[in-house]
């Protein structure tokens, strides 16, 4: 009989750090929770005594429009942040799947991204400052509020995608972007995968490539062009796809099947990866990035096959959500990275008592 975890909702970063330290001192396992949209990512934790929720840390700390920089607490949802930025004609190019309800901290910890990554990269490219609560109760900041900064180690990278295994992100600063002068979405329905793939390559070869380009297993393609009016209109005319309502992106971002995986490969290997997925598989891909999200059908064996292909292509297959049994059977992460020992050294340095997410991540 496992007891349900205690739920803690600290009101400040300091309180959160204190809660974390107390749990660590008592040898309790802490599961940080943002919006809960990625709660099934990773392996099922070995222990789970305290759920540390960031939901009350939901403020915009500072939005400096003239600097194109925003600082927020980690528990703010991405939708709230976007609506604040939108008032000043700016946005953060982070549009994750399984929306709405993601928190900024959760997105940073899990490393989830969306279609706009094609043009803007991932938070790796626009996260400029971070504040983290460490298991010993300290709060450590790095980076800052300027767009270019090499002062000290890049601790932002250390916590991005680290699944909260080294510390709990409590605040973050981002470089933000101006709303595009012109924003047009087009789509194309193709009869076959090959036809759709060729069309996606045509779109990417344009002199102004789409800011987002999604290829669906149904043969549908959706592309979004951002830029000056004349430039965007010329690209749209050259491509010749049909105009689509921009709401397709909201609809697209809601995708989050009950059992799904992210397959990431070098982008020139993606064609082969898509071909190797089981016939009739349901998936959606960002061909310009090298990522496909796959709605898993066929159970553990299908996952093993797809993972073997992805790893043979120097990539990975990570389970984004799914039943505990499946994640236990095949593992959420796949082949451990060759530098696992180094990663374990970092884990041990920051979280020697294995307080944070024990057993959930690779370290």
């Amino acid at each position, binding site marked *: 009989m496992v007891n349900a975890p205690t739920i803690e909702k600290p009101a400040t970063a300091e309180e959160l750090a204190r809660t974390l330290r107390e749990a660590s001192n008592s040898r309790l396992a802490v599961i940080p929770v943002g919006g809960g949209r990625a709660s099934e990512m990773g392996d099922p934790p070995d222990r789970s005594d305290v759920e540390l929720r960031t939901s009350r840390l939901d403020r915009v700390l500072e939005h400096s429009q003239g600097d194109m920089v925003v600082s927020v607490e980690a528990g703010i949802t991405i939708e709230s942040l976007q609506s604040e930025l939108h008032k000043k004609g700016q946005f953060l190019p982070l549009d994750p799947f399984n929306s709405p309800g993601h928190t900024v901290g959760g997105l940073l910890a899990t490393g989830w991204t969306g279609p706009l990554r094609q043009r803007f990269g991932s938070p790796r490219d626009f996260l400029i400052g971070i504040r983290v609560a460490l298991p010993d109760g300290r709060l450590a*900041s790095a980076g800052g509020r300027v767009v270019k900064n090499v*002062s000290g180690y890049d601790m932002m990278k250390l916590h991005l995608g680290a699944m909260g295994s080294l510390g709990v992100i409590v605040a973050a600063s981002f470089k933000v972007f101006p709303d595009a002068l012109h924003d047009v979405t087009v789509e194309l329905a193709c009869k076959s995968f090959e036809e759709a793939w060729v069309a996606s390559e045509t779109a990417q070869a344009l002199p102004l490539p789409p800011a987002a380009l999604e290829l669906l297993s149904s043969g549908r393609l959706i592309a979004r062009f951002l830029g000056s009016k004349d430039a965007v209109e010329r690209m749209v005319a050259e491509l010749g796809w049909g105009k689509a309502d921009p709401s397709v992106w909201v609809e697209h971002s809601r995708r989050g099947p009950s059992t799904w995986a992210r397959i990431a490969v070098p982008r020139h290997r993606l064609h082969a990866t898509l071909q190797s997925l089981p016939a009739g598989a349901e998936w959606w891909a960002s061909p310009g990035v090298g990522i496909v999200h796959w709605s898993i059908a066929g159970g553990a064996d299908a996952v093993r096959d797809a993972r073997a292909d992805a790893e043979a292509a120097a990539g990975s297959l990570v389970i984004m959500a799914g039943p505990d049994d499946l994640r236990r059977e095949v593992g959420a992460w796949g082949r451990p990275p060759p*530098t696992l020992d180094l990663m374990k050294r970092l884990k041990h340095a920051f979280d020697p008592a294995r307080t944070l997410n024990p057993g959930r991540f690779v370290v």
Partner: protein
Amino acid sequence: MPLEAPVLAQLRRIVGRDHVIDSAHDLRIFERDASIEGATPDAVVLPATNDEVAAVIKLAAQHRIPVVPRGAGTGLSGGAVTIRGGIALQMTRMRHILEIDPIGQTALVEPGVVNQELSLAAAAHGLFYAPDPSSQKACTIGGNAAENSGGPHCLYYGVTTNHVLGMEVVLADGSVHWVSGDAPDRVGLDLCGVLVGSEGTLCAITKIKVRLLRVPPTFATLLAAFPTIEAASHAVSAIIAHGIVPAALEMMDQVTVGAVEAHYHAGYPTDAGAVLLVEVDGIAESTHELMAAIRNQLTANNGYALREAKNSVERDLLWAGRKGAIGALGRIKPNYYLHDGVVPRSKLPQIMSAVGEIGEHYKLPVANMFHAGDGNLHPNILFDMRDSAVLHQVESAGEEMLRAVIEFGGALSGEHGIGLEKSAFMPWVFSPDDLRAMQQVKDAFDQDGIMNPGKIFPDPGRKQARLPGRTGLASEAKWW
């Protein structure tokens, strides 16, 4: 302290007898980078392969000898200076472009490859390597990765870390590892992201996989004159505040323009208080629209004599002036000293006034040439090193300028690194807890501290910041 004879003999066995330098006379060449302070290495070792690098570091680890990786020595923060002696690991024999993949748009290079050589080689495929430090004719990709270097075009394209896909590194125990690679979202911690910009304190870099970008179809490059540096700063803030992100947005003041014009005859207006060099790229429709919007902001903020390059020859000349500016300053004084602090971009007018006042207070000539669009300052304090009395004044003025940057909510370094020269200022920005977290990373990679010791972290044994620190601004700022 000279290395013991058996160690020297072993080093010679590893890299070959011609590739170890230990004569007092020859070592002096490796005392400095492009910053002020120098220190003589005990030996310079020039490896040719990753195995040799690994063997050298393993040997150094056994004997607790410091190892300081070194590229072209163009660094501006003392990162390559062997402040605690030991081995300068000179990487420039490893200078091969191993692969350019036009399909995947990547390149695999050895660390000693010169930045500009990579873009020249990639040009055959219509590709280029985006980070373009002003020293790109000499600086190496390995040094760029170690320092996370920037350059004028990083405003739009991002700095080195945004373009490094993976690296082969040698750690302090001599072990060789690949970190990251071509695929996105790799499983585990982003070690590559932590190692880029670690200034040689965590590893030596032996191979780098970088992203290449398609060369834009058109460029529009424009020069605008301003009555004062403050007016030009207002124009920069206005451009950014209007949501315009050019590919590059560079400022040069009158002192710089005078030196550049005498040297390059690029047609810079020598009567102006400052000039802005603005570039946009992309398809013609984009560049036209962006440039029209930029022209509006420039003229609305007292810009005049706007001149757009008519062809690539004119464009190259304008850029030659900017990138060669630091060399041209030699016409005024033989030495320069600069910090590269960064301010939030709305603070440019105030910080430029403050920089000017500090220069006047110390009666030192200051030449400003910098990445204005990023808020990344480069106030070059000009002096003559042979006048020993002035050096202290120069350093004090530099410290005050950097202190002003921090007071405006800025950062200690945008692209040059902390190295030796700014380590004492780290507590201005970072609290003891912030620094301890960084030290934990250092210790996890290099427990005995043999990799580039004495850099980044404040060193109690060295000169301290003269100005008192409000410690840990990053931690205590209201925005947390």
